[in-house]
């Protein structure tokens, strides 16, 4: 029986493309799913791509292609995390719309806005987004109820979103001719 022997160059190129896209793919999946499941799905996406390496290489938007596969694979988790499908559509749209050159400016604005939050709220946001803990786990770390954590995170997201919106709008206005 013949052994699988995909073109070695193709595999190398695909791996390079995946390495470049993986952080963003993982971030996208963490936007859809809790971190452990997101990382599982990210791995599955990579394995799917490696099965058909040519498709990724010949495409002109590898990120969108990977997110398409990711959404398909993530849909298997919908039963456990029955997030409203419309929310997912808004999330996907957000990832499709933003141009890469905006990232540095957005990240700088985020950093500035984070600095304006209280220490405890910053700690909660770090635990949620950096360490990937859920509300119950954060609650255990900080001796708070899960509901209390959810409420604080909700307020934190709202405050950050307002701050970001203001800062980015100001930057846009300054850049305008």
């Amino acid at each position, binding site marked *: 029986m013949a052994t699988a022997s995909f073109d070695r160059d193709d595999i190398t190129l695909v791996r390079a493309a995946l390495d470049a896209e993986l952080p963003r793919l993982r971030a996208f999946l963490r*936007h859809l799913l809790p971190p452990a499941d997101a990382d599982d799905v990210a791995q599955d996406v990579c394995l799917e791509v490696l099965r058909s*390496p040519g498709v990724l290489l010949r495409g002109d938007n590898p*990120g969108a292609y990977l997110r*398409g596969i990711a959404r*398909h694979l993530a849909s298997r988790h919908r039963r456990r995390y029955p997030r409203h499908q419309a929310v997912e559509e808004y*999330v996907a749209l957000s990832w499709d719309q*933003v141009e890469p050159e905006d990232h540095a400016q957005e990240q700088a604005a985020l950093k500035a806005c984070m600095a304006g939050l209280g220490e405890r709220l910053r700690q909660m946001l770090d635990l949620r987004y950096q360490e990937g803990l859920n509300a119950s786990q954060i609650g255990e770390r900080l001796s708070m109820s899960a509901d209390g954590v959810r409420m604080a995170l909700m307020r934190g997201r709202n405050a950050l979103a307002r701050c970001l919106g203001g800062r980015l709008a100001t930057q846009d206005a300054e850049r305008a001719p």
Partner: protein
Amino acid sequence: MSEPCVTWRERVGGMLDPEVPAAEAGAFIAHLPGCPGCRAVVEQVIRCERLLHTAATQAAPQRAPERRGSSTSTLRRTTVRRRRVRRVSFTPWIAGAAALLLVAVVAGVMGPSSSTTAFATVESATALSSADGQALRVGATLVSGAELRGGPAQVRLADGTRLWLDADSRLSLTSNATLRAGGGAGVLLRLDDGAVGVSAKPQDPTAPLAVQTPLAESVVVGTAFRVAHDSSGSELTVSSGTVRLVSKDGERLVTAGSHARVEVAPPPATLIASFSASSAVGTTSDGQPLNGWAGNGNLLAQPPSGSQQPILRPLGKGYGLCFNGRDQRLATSVQTFAAQHGLTLIALVIPINPGRDQRVVALNDGGRERVALVRHDLSPGAIAALVDGSERVRVEVPEGKYWSVACRWQADGGVVLNTGAGAGKRVAAAVPTGISAPQLTFGGSPSGRALEGDIIAIELHAGVLDDAALAARVRALASANRFPLTSW
């Protein structure tokens, strides 16, 4: 900005959290298309979340995994659970449907034009065989009508187009075939299971390459794409160019970076009860369309065997059924039906009858009525929601229109009354609409207690919907619940 907008915008950061159940955000999401202000807030919060996630993953970048079998995958080390890629065997009814389609393909599509000219070559293969079980090795040539089983494998067509076949796939290749949707295909790939990636060379527009699954046809317009099919449906992901997707839902162009899915329709629901009245519409607790309804005198209420989407969805404890009964006889029949099937009947939605002071629904606390929605004779088509006998909200509902009321239970046993999302108009509200009722119960719930987060959605109709509107509504409900409708 309306009052619901203020409340929702304060809570939007919580409602978009993946840990929050869909029901929580249902009403808000339904409100978004008509409210640019709320939509902007949602987009702002999602943008913020995207940045937080991006910052987190950029802080700790990880490499792509090696192919299965390698030991150097960083991701694999971090993965708690590994799952086998899904390979679902066809259930009998699906196999039957697939067989029917396959017969149609063989008789009307693939048959007349088979050729014995070699038009494809196997470039790499693992566990690949032909339909008769003969192993296919690198360099093997394929003629029209060849069927490939197994994989992964790579195949090159005569025009330079490359195919990547996933493991455990089933793919047949035919030259000069006729498509289901009409027109011809230079090469037709028939995928019955698994997945195939395609990087197509420029195609002859009069005889392009096409990939067919039991549910859909993807016709190449000059592109790279991937098609997958299993027992739940067919999935198309386009990497570059454009693919024309033809399915039972019609024809559409899928562009680069997009994906489209065609799902298997479930079998028809079993008819287990019928009513004399012909109208029964409403919504479930999570804002979804009604899960049981009467159409042409029949009530579809029993999930088909093996269905993944029961018609009657759980609502905390018991089930939700909302009916717009034309008469008391229907209401009584529904109550009897619910009792016979152990269902909790939460709300009856009854048209407002001008001139009659009619109770629409009442929520009870140990036998004492705490929340009631009644018709007042203050003006035609007006509805008032009472809490402990005091009017909290009054709305006007024009003839033929509707208004929704939702009661949401809190952790402390209290309840918040929300109204909105209808074609009616709020004319009076006494704030706050939240009430505290530690022992609040409703309907005939077996345990007598609502659960935290339970939402009862009630649709109030002024007058009876006309037949055309009702038919359209039932069609929409059937479509949303993926039920075939044959009698409308």
